[in-house]
């Protein structure tokens, strides 16, 4: 008797779930208020646990870092010499670039985007989805599709906004595809997240034209033609670019600039890409 009742409940819930999946899969914005409501309640709890956890972890980490710092210090001093040399050279090149840019009326609006800092408060502990939550939401002016950066590189895009939190999908998520280009040559390509590749710390670089000039070590930035990403944000460096079997395109890998595993603070760019208006 009871077993039968349970089975009926199961069938009912299963049916409801399936209907909901179809409906909300098509009309994503319908559940936003519900998500936002639950987020609002869980937020203080998350924050508390998060702060406690981080404090504990940071104290362990500090001891380790000190040891590493000694070694790093030595290596860094050596690097400093090399870099100052290189810097002089780069400065020269920079002047030249500025001259050329004004010459060509190139207005790539680097760096003058408005940004808000945010703390990462929750992440997917599983390995399938590379999403995380930050502690700023619509109250702070965050909107869906805003770009998120950290460590000087692109990290992801806001996919979901509540009043006091928002969810960010990293560019390493398996469904992520970013339209990008080589900074040196301006040739277009696609940077796609791939779970299996990310285990080795890299992303997939694809759809490069066979004649395009994209070489290993090239800086890859977001392209002008992307619909959601602002142009000129650094993503990473090209690696192992080879010709595909089809002989029509080239593909390779990309080493990202941002370190996704240790993200604690990110910057949300509140300037948004305007398209079609």
């Amino acid at each position, binding site marked *: 008797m009871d077993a039968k009742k*349970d089975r009926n409940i199961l069938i009912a819930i299963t049916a409801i779930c399936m209907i909901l999946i179809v409906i909300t899969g098509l009309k994503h914005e319908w559940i936003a208020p519900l998500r936002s409501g639950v987020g609002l309640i869980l937020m203080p709890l998350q924050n508390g646990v998060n702060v406690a*956890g981080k404090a504990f*972890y940071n104290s362990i980490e500090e001891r380790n870092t000190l040891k590493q710092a000694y070694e790093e210090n030595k290596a860094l001093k050596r690097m400093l010499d090399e870099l100052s040399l290189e810097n002089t050279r780069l400065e020269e090149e920079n002047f030249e670039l500025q001259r050329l840019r004004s010459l060509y009326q190139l207005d790539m609006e680097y760096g003058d985007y408005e940004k808000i800092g945010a703390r990462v408060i929750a992440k997917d502990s599983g390995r399938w989805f590379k999403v995380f939550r930050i502690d700023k939401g619509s109250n702070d002016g965050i909107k869906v599709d805003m770009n998120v950066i950290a460590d000087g590189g692109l990290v992801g895009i806001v996919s979901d906004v509540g009043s006091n939190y928002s969810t960010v999908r990293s560019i390493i998520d398996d469904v992520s595809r970013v339209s990008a280009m080589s900074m040196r040559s301006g040739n277009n390509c696609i940077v796609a997240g791939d779970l299996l590749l990310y285990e080795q710390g890299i992303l997939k670089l694809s759809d490069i034209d066979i004649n395009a000039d994209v070489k290993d070590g090239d800086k890859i930035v977001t392209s002008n033609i992307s619909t959601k990403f602002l142009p000129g944000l650094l993503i990473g460096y090209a690696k192992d670019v080879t010709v595909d079997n089809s002989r029509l395109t080239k593909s390779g890998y990309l080493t990202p600039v941002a370190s996704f595993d240790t993200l604690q603070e990110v910057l949300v760019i509140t300037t948004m890409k305007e398209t079609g208006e």
Partner: protein
Amino acid sequence: MRRKIANIAMLILAFVIQISVFPFIPFLSAAPNFMIIMVFTFSFIYGTGEGMLYGVVAGLLMDLFYSLPLGYFTLFFVLMGYINGSLSRYFYEDFIFLPLIMCALNEFAYNIYIYLSRFFTREKFDLWAYIRQMILPEVIITLLFTLLLYRLLLQYNRSLEDMDIKRGRESAE
């Protein structure tokens, strides 16, 4: 009744820990899946009805955290609660081997569910690579935590049951 509320509260707390503590410990390459452990344990002890209740709670929490269609995780966890609940007649308190195997199977099924619906459908066919790199580490760490948590959850629930009985209320069947 008190026990159910206490368990749901614990489920929510475990979820919060799962998303805001474990991911920030970089040397943990895999994190245990508390939702699986708890839904499994509760439904295995208390049967299909309660199994589904905790399944819905865990599923909704997951659904609301991820930006996926609502019901995606609820569907899995409700089924999981029901199936494990229907096996509760094999529940003996001193027997840890069966729960461990079942927990591993649940964890495996959960990962395969995500793989089939989210990756296989996007033409990522390399199942073996996903099993080796994504699924096995999580199954193993979840097993370890089951070993630790199963007894604790069991004892905790026994004491809650006693409290319910003392208060003259009806405990679970």
